[in-house]
């Protein structure tokens, strides 16, 4: 069994063209792999851990079952500080992360923590944001909506599933900035607890637009209750090529809610190489790609150093907009 898995690992690495790392990866095999989900069971990060664990084991990349530990608190801050402080050299630990993690890091919502406290392993999928209005709304495209916002910011209320300063809030602000709103703080945003509640607010007519992840909106697009006026992706989404992007309407705004993993900073290089490669193989496998397609998540791959670089840029961008809107000084 063991020989076979190693074989598979080497084969996979050769295909991926990463022969130098293969030697290092062979030296290390996690004994009791653990994934910390900084959310309650059933939450988004919990699913990252459970899917990663499932695919890694099915593909023989890890031999024992991934243990998933849930550690809630401070939107991931408790787990972040715990990993940085108490588990800093644990080779067997990976932690689920997403935009929420970097947004809070950027806004200083994890007191005493910095982005460099951990080692960013990978991002392996992203859900693009979308802006939607009610099916019989007067706004037919992004331009008509943003023109109304520029003319009178209080005439359009955006609802979203995250708190003020969260990603659903930042998306309309970026659009406002691109549209030339003088003071983006005036763009009206109403925070709901979850994308579903925000959708209900839109359907009940309480707000004029919704800012959310595409997956939250998808069911209502198909039923015809709402109209998606902009997808915040670089290109039109597979399977939904009738929905226009913001970019093609002249607003160069991207909103990628990525999912990924980090691990402790002082883990051994062998362990880091192992996890990074294992996750890369998983993410590039046909089964995982199919899983992403089914879940309407677009591939969004950054591994190893690329992941570090991407996270740094991501944090930089969020810091800028957060300063502009006065969330941080």
């Amino acid at each position, binding site marked *: 069994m063991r020989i076979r898995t190693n074989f598979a690992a080497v084969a996979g690495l050769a295909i991926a063209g990463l022969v130098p790392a293969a030697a290092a990866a062979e030296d290390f095999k996690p004994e009791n792999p653990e994934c910390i989900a900084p959310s*309650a*069971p*059933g*939450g*988004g990060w919990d*699913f990252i851990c*459970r*899917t990663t664990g*499932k695919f890694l084991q099915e593909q023989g990349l890890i031999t024992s079952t991934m243990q*998933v*530990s*849930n*550690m*809630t*608190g*401070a*939107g991931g*801050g*408790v787990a972040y*500080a715990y990993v940085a402080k108490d588990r800093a050299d644990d080779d067997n630990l990976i932690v689920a992360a997403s935009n929420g993690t970097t947004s809070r890091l950027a*806004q200083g*919502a*994890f*007191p005493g923590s910095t982005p460099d406290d951990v080692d960013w392993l990978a991002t392996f999928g992203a859900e693009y944001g979308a802006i939607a209005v009610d099916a019989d709304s007067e706004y037919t495209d992004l331009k008509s909506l943003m023109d109304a916002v520029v003319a009178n910011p*209080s005439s359009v*209320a955006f609802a979203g599933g995250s*708190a*003020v*300063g*969260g990603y659903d809030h930042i998306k309309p602000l970026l659009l406002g900035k691109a549209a030339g709103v003088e003071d983006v703080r005036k763009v*009206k*945003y*109403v*925070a*709901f*607890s*979850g994308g*579903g*509640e925000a*959708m*209900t*607010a839109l*359907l*009940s*007519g*309480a*707000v004029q637009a919704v800012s959310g992840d595409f*997956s*939250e909106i*998808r*069911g*209502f697009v*198909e*039923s015809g*209750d709402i109209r998606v006026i902009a997808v915040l992706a670089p290109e039109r989404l597979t399977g939904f090529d009738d929905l226009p992007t913001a970019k093609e309407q002249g607003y160069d705004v991207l909103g990628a809610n990525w999912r990924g993993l980090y691990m402790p900073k002082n883990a051994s290089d062998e362990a880091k190489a192992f996890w990074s490669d294992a996750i890369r193989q998983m993410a590039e496998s046909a089964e995982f790609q199919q899983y992403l397609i*089914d*879940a309407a998540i677009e591939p969004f791959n950054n591994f190893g150093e690329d992941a570090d670089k991407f996270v740094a840029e991501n944090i930089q961008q969020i810091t800028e907009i957060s300063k502009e809107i006065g*969330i941080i000084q």
Partner: protein
Amino acid sequence: METLASLADGFIVAFTVQNLFLALLGCFLGTLMGALPGLGPANGVAILIPIAFSLGLGPTPSLILLTSVYYGAMYGGRISSILLNIPGDEPAMMTCLDGYPMAQQGKAGEALSLSGIASFVGAFFATWGLVLLAPQLVKVALLFGPAEYFVLFTLAFATLGGISSTNQAKSAFAAALGLAIAMIGVDTQTGVQRFTFGEMHLFDGIDFLIAIVGLFALSEVFIFLEHHRGGAAGKAGAMQIGSLMPDMATLKRCVPTMGRSTVIGFIAGVLPGAGASLGSFLSYSLEKQIVDRDGKTFGKGDPRGVVAPEVGNNAASGGALVPMLALGVPGSGTTAVLLAVLLSLNITPGPLLFTNNPDVVWGLIAALFIGNFMLLALNIPMVGLFTRVLLVPTRILMPVVAMISFVGIYGISGSTFDLTLMVGFGLLGWVLRKLDVPLVPVILGILLGNQMEVNLRRAMTISDGDWTALFASPLAIGLWIVAITGFVLPIILGRRIKSGIEAQRPHEAVSDGD
């Protein structure tokens, strides 16, 4: 008729040996989890998700297992409320008010059977409501915007006076304390931290489960410790079990209560953001105002005071599936977890679910009916077994309660900070009990206060700070009228009746009702 045909198809899907076994397993585990303080339906479902996945179950069997756990937990919550005065989960809180006094009077068996039947009635009719009315009810849910929600929660607080008859000032204080606790955490409308003192564990606010387990379960343990040190023998063996079944007369007396509470509970469940706790609370306080105006029997072991909240919370659990399935909007913590499961099974809840995945929906609904009958069959014969808990000497029972509390809370968050916080709440609960301050309003403050504030803030943001938005729709005005009536009527009536009965009222022990 088309609906009934679909339902029949659903029964065909559900009636396989595997599915029936899963339903039975789910019902049993759910009842158990519901009865344990700290483990509520939401955690129960969440804990079983990995099991459902690792067994490789398909969408329908997974959902059958998980919803059986959900319904089971809603049934089970009442058991510890009645026997120990410790709510097994948050909606079961109201069941303590009359359930525990009934147990103290030696009517534990009766209370358990009655509440089992009540749970069945609530869940059964709510499931029918789900079958027949789901499309129409979605429209009702859409009438509620932030302003209407705010008024709805105001209504709940306005009728708060109804629940503890002893000292209104103390209930008001308790509710204010709960509201204050609800303010802790990051304010979602501005991103500003409130009362967190830089302590990261407080950023998300205080989980009301921690508050419930601390205030109810641990304070009970502290009270026991206190008396134990004082040399009291404890009340081991002092409680009688009595008959296991209620007589027909009692049952008959409860029928109108069941009818009213089913409707209220179901509607509360349908509204996303209201949920089972509001359902059981409103059922109880309304029932009290209807059948017990002068506050003579409620809170002292009235069977109707057990029936109302149990019908209410089980009807709400059926109602909560309406927005979850039809809109993809969870009406409660548990349905939020179920929603996550659906999404991970590549089923998108929403307006098209009924057309795209009819086998899943109708199989699920059929499973709810089956689970419901199983729960009734499981619960009534087991009443005798449950009541044995009362025979366990307190000196053994209390350490077990403490242990379960710690394990339950640690299981949710894996945080030792939460355990410390729970002990803090235990001490607070002990002090409040000493001062005869009722505990239920504290929890209601924590549970509903947040929602009330958030919806007010949303309404204000949308209207640019124009307060008249709160009175803008006919629905809001109607709710205001009910709220004001609910607040004022008991004061006027109460004063008139109070003077009449003050003389014949015995100086009862005040702490019975909390």
